[in-house]
Structure formats: structure tokens, C-alpha cells
């Protein structure tokens, strides 16, 4: 697998369709707290940022997992979660610097994006392409450019 989900917050309108799609597809009901993607809204600024697992190269959730439940299969870039190996110690939840792993009390398991085995529903329903499922090399480049642009814009605003 060589694709990841890229986030474009500037395109996000805050509709939460990704959240609903994730919860409905994976857990069978529209329960936002069961979603692996979350949208944070700033109402005064009217800005929204979707957040989901970055599939870190050097993933803290994998490093701290004592049972190997959180693991990266050889040759893949997606960090996967094996519910059968998980002892619910929630070390991964604490370790994730982005808050993108969470524990769901209702289903008693860890929620973390696994890109739906290559067909992410959140990307499919996003009406604005704020989430895109892209080739990893393109994504790397796009991400760098996107951040460079943010710096540029920030400096322009100051100047």
C-alpha cells in the first residue's frame, strides 16, 4: 500500500460528513464519538480542521504498544490495530502527539484510522476534497508545499 489520506483544512466547511461516514460505516451508527476522524471547529474564525491518524513513519503508538496490537505490517505505510492482541492499556492514546488514537467505551476498543483497507469512506463522502486519498510521494510534496504556503501567508500578513 502506498497511499495516505491528506488533509486540506482550507477546503473544510465543517460539515462532519467524514465523521458520520466513519462512524456509520465502521460502527453501524451515526455516533461521532465512534469516528476515527474528528473535525475541530473554530466558530469565531469559522475555520475547521479535520484530524485523523497521520500513519507516522516513526509511530509512537506502535513504539509504546506492549503487545504488538498496534503494528505496521511489513511493506506497508499504514499502522494497523489488532483488536485481538489489544489489552486496552490505552498507552497508544496517551502516546499519540496528535490525539488521533482514542478509546471507545461503547465498543471497548481503540479507534484509529486504518484507511478502510484502501477505500476510505471519509474521503468518498467529503463534498469539498478536504480529505484526499493520495499517492504517498505526491502527498509528501503537497504537504511540504502546503506548509510552505502557510508560512508565506503568515509572513505576508505580518508584513
Amino acid at each position, binding site marked *: 500500500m502506498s497511499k495516505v489520506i491528506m488533509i486540506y483544512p482550507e477546503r473544510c*466547511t465543517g460539515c462532519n460528513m467524514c465523521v458520520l461516514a466513519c462512524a456509520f460505516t465502521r460502527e453501524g*451508527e*451515526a455516533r461521532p464519538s*465512534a469516528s476515527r476522524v474528528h473535525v475541530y471547529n473554530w466558530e*469565531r474564525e469559522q475555520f475547521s480542521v479535520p484530524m485523523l491518524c497521520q500513519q507516522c513513519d516513526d509511530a509512537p503508538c506502535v513504539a509504546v504498544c506492549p503487545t504488538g496490537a498496534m503494528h505496521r505490517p511489513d511493506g506497508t505505510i499504514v499502522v494497523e490495530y489488532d483488536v485481538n492482541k489489544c489489552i486496552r492499556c490505552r498507552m497508544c492514546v496517551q502516546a499519540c502527539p496528535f490525539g488521533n488514537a482514542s478509546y471507545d467505551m461503547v465498543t471497548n476498543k481503540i479507534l484509529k484510522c486504518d484507511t478502510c483497507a484502501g477505500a476510505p469512506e471519509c474521503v468518498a463522502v467529503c*463534498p469539498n476534497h478536504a480529505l484526499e486519498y493520495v499517492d504517498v510521494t505526491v502527498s509528501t510534496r503537497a504537504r511540504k508545499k502546503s506548509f510552505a504556503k502557510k508560512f508565506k501567508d503568515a509572513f505576508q500578513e505580518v508584513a
Partner: protein
Amino acid sequence: MNAWTGTILRVNLTNGTIKKEPLDVKAARAFIGARGLAAKMLFDEVDPNIDALSPENKLFFAAGPLTGTFAPNVGRYDVVCKSPLTGAIAASNSGGSFGPELKYAGYDMIIFEGKAPAPVYLWIHNDQVELRDASALWGKEVPETTDLLRAETDEDAKVACIGPAGEKLSFIASVMNEMGRAAGRSGVGAVMGSKNLKAIAVVGTGGVSVADKDAFAAAAKDAAAKIKAHPVGGTGLKAYGTDVLVNILNSVGSLPTRNFQDGYFPTADKTGGEALAANNLLRPRGCHSCIIECGRATKVTNPKFAGEGEGPEYESAWGFGADCGIDNLDAIIKANFLCNDLGLDTISTATTIACAMDLYEAGIITLKDTGGIPLNFGNAEVMVELVKMMGNREGFGDKMADGSWRLADAYGHPEYSMSCKKQEMPAYDPRGVQGIGLHYATSNRGGCHVRGYTIAVEVLGNPVKMDQHTTEGKPDLVITFQNLTAALDSTGACLFATFGIGGDELAALLSGATGIPYSTADFMKAGERIWNLERMWNLAAGLSSNDDVLPERLLHEPIKTGPSKGEVSHLNEMLPVYYDLRGWDANGVPSAERLETLGLA
């Protein structure tokens, strides 16, 4: 339960008790939810003859069965009560994510009764529900109230509240949620204020389940595909917002101008959605589960009117624009922001200002009345100032804060109020578009476009086009739209979903979600049932066919310029046909047979 949560919160503000009650499943099946079910409960529980601002009035915050589900454009809730503005039933609906959050917390509806002895707010965190002191919040505007409440409860809480206008019992006060979304019309904010209820903050971590996941998912996908493929629902509203209508309505000579003195505004294009997108739009925004995104995050840099916020949508841009003879978009946007902050309905606020300008230019009110403020049409600075004065009931703003009818009546000239049932009409001139005039006159909440949006057919050609000037076929059209919208509102869906889907798709969604097989005919019949129930309540409240009227100006003074020059409304030709098709007698009273058919006897 599926779709519905099955639980209603009943909050008695007088004695501070909070009860959880089971949803009446039979009533929910017949009246769906949101607007319809709350209307049914108001009908059963509230004497139509009470004073709307007395503790005897009840205030319903009601979500629908589709609210919060994974279907496109179903994130809405309704605020229902007796309206202080019209004396009729009020049902104002709003988007954002307050309605879905209420469902996720486990409730279909909250009913507020009585009056709190001192300002309070309701804090809902799933099962935990409590009334808290709101004295520190009283007097605060909407954004600050929202921020303070989040600091006091939960940073992710969804907040619905009133601003100063609601506290000061302005008959045109709104209930605002998430700062920029409004349950705007009919003065529901004043009813909230009369109960000393400043706000509701809610956090819900549960979900909404559906009966048949596969059928529901298929219906949701079908609905989303159809909305996306539609030129308005899929493309137009996101690009330009609803304000795209300014140029469209002006081009057909039906953009009410200077308090409906005319139907054409030569410089309207300066205030349209295209100009907004070019000059002020930061980004489109969407309510919960919205794939249309007509919401506008906008910014004004002009120091005189500087600000950042939500809006304007079409009605606001028209009201503060053409209807006041103003083409300064910065001022229009600023007026919209102020309405959001103060908790005022933009349509009634703008059109009350237009009415005041008309009275002033006619010499009926003078500088002596206004405290030295010249109220000429076209004065953008004065218009913006008046919004502040109305929201805070300052100076002449106090006289304007109860809407145009009370203002004009106080000076002996109610005919200057461009309202139906004392609620101001919105942005489509009934002289240029015949069907919408019949709808205004018969709408159960008075002057209002979103209960029977015949503009879709008469102007936009969706799903078919009818001649805007003909009266033929219009009563039937109005009835179809009124019934469809009553049912649609009751599901929790957004009216704009009809730019793509209709009764078939909504019935399929409702069936999949609830497990109750609603055919399209069942769905439309539910809409007719709700419409007739609202009508019965209004008749019991003392309204009659004498209130199914339009202002004289629209019947006798033709549009002066533009493409619809020379036209007047032919309401009186259409109204008897409408009554007859509805199964109502010549006085607009539903027949016993029709009520029986609808299960309302």
C-alpha cells in the same frame, strides 16, 4: 429506538424540575418530529389564547428523526411556541450542529414550561441535565455568551442562546446557535427571554441508529448523488450562497425595493452573491451533514463596517439592501453581523427599518420622533445604527424592536407594514411572482418564504418551470409545496435539499431510518396533516380568513419599473381556489371530513 432517541426532556423553569419522558411513538409516526411533532404537542398542551410572553407559553426545541443521521443535509431542529409577533404558531428552524448534538445526548426534544425566577441556562451532558445560574451571562451578546458558557461547561459544547434582543423581549428576537446560525423568525427569542432562559449548552457522546442500515445507506447515497448533480444544490449555492438570488430576482422584476414601493433595484448587482464572493467571502461553510454549503464566512475590511462573521444570505442582503434602497454591501454585511450578535431576525429587522424609512419619507414620522436621525432610504450608516438601537431597545429603536406592524400601527398607518399576520414578508415580490403571494397570505406563521417555496418553480424552474405571472395552477402548487415542506421540516432536513431531492427520497430515508414504511403519499399526507393542525391551532388562537391577506399596496399599487412593471398581486382570485383544494370552507376552516381523513378529527 431507531432514528428517534425515544426520550423527551421536560423542564419546568418555575420550580426547576427536569423530567425525562418517553416519546409518544404513535404521535411521532403521524407528525414525524421537529416542527410537526412539536406542533402536535403545542396543540395538545398550550391554550392558543394565552399571552405569548406569559409563563403559560411553552418553548419546544425539537430535532427530527433524521437529525444527526448519516444522510446529507439533515442537521436541523425547530424552535416551536406561540409567537409574540403573529399570535400564531411559531416554528423557526436552524442548522449548525445543535440539533444533532441534542440527539447524541439522547433527546428528541426539550420542552420548557413556566418561567425561571432569575436568569438560568440548561446544561445537558448526556444523562446529566441541570439548570444553572445565568445571571453573569445576562446582557451579554451571542458570541460572548457562547464563549463564556463553553468555559463554564465543556469546550466542545454546542450552545443555543439569546442575545440582548431576546432578553429585552423584542418581538423579532431570534434564538442563535453556534454564534452564526439562527432560528430567526416569529420572535422565538423573546419567548426564551420571557422565561428567563438565556441558553442551552449540550454535549452528547451517543449516536443515532437506523432500523435498516443497508436501505438507509442506499437512500443516503442516492440523495447525496442527486443533490451533488443539481446545478443549484451541487454547485450554485456553494459558489455564491443564497445571495446569488439578488440578481436573479431583480432580472425578473421581483426584488422588492424601498419597502415594496417597487420590484426592481437598478444597482442590485452590487449586493449579490457574485459581489460577495469577489469581495468578502473567506470560505463557504456547511451545517452538520451539509453537502450544499451555502453558509458564508465573510469579512469586511472597510473600517466603517469592519468585522468578520457569518452571512449574509439572500434575505438579509435584500432586506438591508434593496428594501432599504441601499447598495453598500459592506454595510449590509455589518448589519447582518450585528443581528447575529444581538440575536435579531435579519428579515424582520431589515424590513422594519425599510418601513421606518418609508414612514419617514411620507412625513408620518419626523426627526422629532426619531431623536434627530434622518431615516431616508439609502442611508447605510443610519441603517447599521438602527440595528444596534433595535437590538438594545435604545431611543427610537425601542419603537422598532417589535417589528414593522407595531411601529406603523403606533403612528396610525399599519398599511405601511409589509407583513402578513404581522410578520414581515421576505424577498420575493408577490406582484411579480403570483404563487408566492398566495403562500405569504396563507402561511401558518405569517410572511415567510420557507414554508412554500414556490419560487423554485415560478422563477428557478426546479423541478419544472411555471410562468411567474399566471395565477393558473398556483393554488395547487402552493399546497404541494406547503405540504412537502411541513413534512420535510419535521424530519430535520434542510429545505435546500429539495435542490436535488423530493418526497420520494425523503420518504425512503425516513423509512430506512425509522423502520416504518413511509410511502411518498404517506409522507405528503403527514405534511398535510401538520399544515392543517397548525391551521386549527391558529384558528383557535383567534386568527381567521381575514388574516389570509396581503398588504393593500401589493394588491393595488403596480410595480413601477423593471421587467414586472405594471403587475399587482391577484391574491383574491387564487385564495378561494386554495381553500377549496385544501378542503376548507369559504372562511378557511378545514372541513370535518378533511380532518377525519387526516386523523385530526
